[in-house]
């Protein structure tokens, strides 16, 4: 795997994981909004 491809993979993995974290944050607040 060359450097460029590795950097691309790193960026992609980081964005996916960050998106998951954001989804949990927003999701649980939405849960609160829907319930209250």
């Amino acid at each position, binding site marked *: 795997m060359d450097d460029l491809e*590795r950097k691309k*993979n*790193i960026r992609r*993995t*980081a964005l996916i*994981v*960050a998106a*998951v*974290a*954001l*989804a*949990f*944050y*927003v*999701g*649980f*607040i939405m*849960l*609160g*909004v829907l*319930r*209250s």
Partner: protein
Amino acid sequence: MTTTTVDTHAADHEHDDHGPTKGIKRWLFSTNHKDIGTMYLIFSLVMFFVGGAMAMVIRSELAIPGLQFVHPEFFNSMTTMHALIMVFGAVMPAFVGLANWMIPLMIGAPDMALPRMNNWSFWILPVAFGILLSTLLMPGGAPASGWTMYPPLVLQTGDAFPFLIFSVHLMGISSIMGSINVIVTIINMRAPDMTLLKMPMFVWTWLITAYLLIAVMPVLAGAVTMLLTDQFFGTSFFLAAGGGDPVMFQHIFWFFGHPEVYIMILPAFGVVSEIIPTFSRKKLFGHDSMVYAASCIAFLSFIVWAHHMFTVGMPLTGQLFFMFATMLIAVPTGVKIFNWVATMWRGAMTFETPMLFSLAFVFLFTIGGFSGLMLAIQPADVQYHDTYFVVAHFHYVLVPGSVFAIMAGAYYWLPKWTGHMYNEKLGKLHFWASTIFVNITFFPQHFLGLAGMPRRIPDYSVQFADFNMISSIGAFGFGLSQLIFVLVILTAWKGAKATDRVWEGSHGLEWTVPSPAPWHTFTTPPKNRIADEAFE
């Protein structure tokens, strides 16, 4: 001649082969995983003593019945701050420090995948804890609602409330950034031949822990954001008067809180899984089953949260589900304990300090596990709930569990970090003092709880006096014992020169680099067979 010198320098620079910058800038702007790991470890040690000092206030007040030294409100602040500091400031950063130091070395990576974010995730922490500790000086005092921050009680916090929320957000952001870094590093930067199932257990447990953190820290952030809007922006997420539900906070908090327990123990499993094979001079028994067991524990940790709230009232089916799901965790945990014992079985064991701490971990964590199993039984939990039995249980899991594993890891890898052997006699003294005093502190608390002493109170009935005095003596002994560890650290550079491999039975890529580990390691990816050969 001159040209050659210039060329060499240029080549060195191009390969990032220079040493650290001098002075404070080295630490402020560091993107080096070893420096950041060191900062995490020092920070966690400082927080360990700050949180420990608060524990001493608690145990002083509880040594004899009646109110002695502090106001009840301040006592509640101490229990709250002690927990927040120990969980988020001591245990978690210590494991992140070990991860920063060791994961790149173990997988043959030159550094963490996102080094600048790594710097950020560390430097947010002192700010977060500076803010949290500053609340001690605010009107209305520091938060006193317990680390669980249950509404409506937490909404009675004085000026400290928004600062508490902000600091929890900062801790969460730091943890999430750290976890992103760990996941991205492990997924993308392993040595070419290192398949996932060839990874060392410490790396595996950290990968699982990082996924747990990604899933649950935002949940905590969401919960405290809702608390903030309830207090200042007129919402009623958790306020019954406005149509909200305070119990919903408990559900959301424990959806974070229970996996958090495993966030603090899975890396400990990883550390112990590295140390026991080394000092048994055998391969880890059932490496793959350990991976599956850790994954299984992580999965189960998401479906057991309501066992923390058996007494709030829930349908019978809910009680049964959470009871059985909780008891199920004993199975993969049992697999781990069995594998550690099987690794030691007929091994050529020696008992250096890291091994002693690991053995104590196996024994004493198991005691914490058993009391957890007792608490999982719903009808029994109604009696145990909010008593000192719970305090004894989670301290057995976290002190001779997580903290002992951190100590074991620190002793195990210290020669790799400093290039010198630590003082073994002091290490063993630290171990025996810690082990004796930790049991004197927490074992009597089981009896106090079973006799009905509630937790989070500054005063108690005289029938609880004797066990409380014993527990307080143990706590002061344990606190003083930790000064031996500081002495070990301060004298760590005075011992004999450490070899690259350090321990006779050690194996893995981290032992193939010199001791101390140079500023840059694995600038070219190693072949995984080096790790295999190191074990042969």
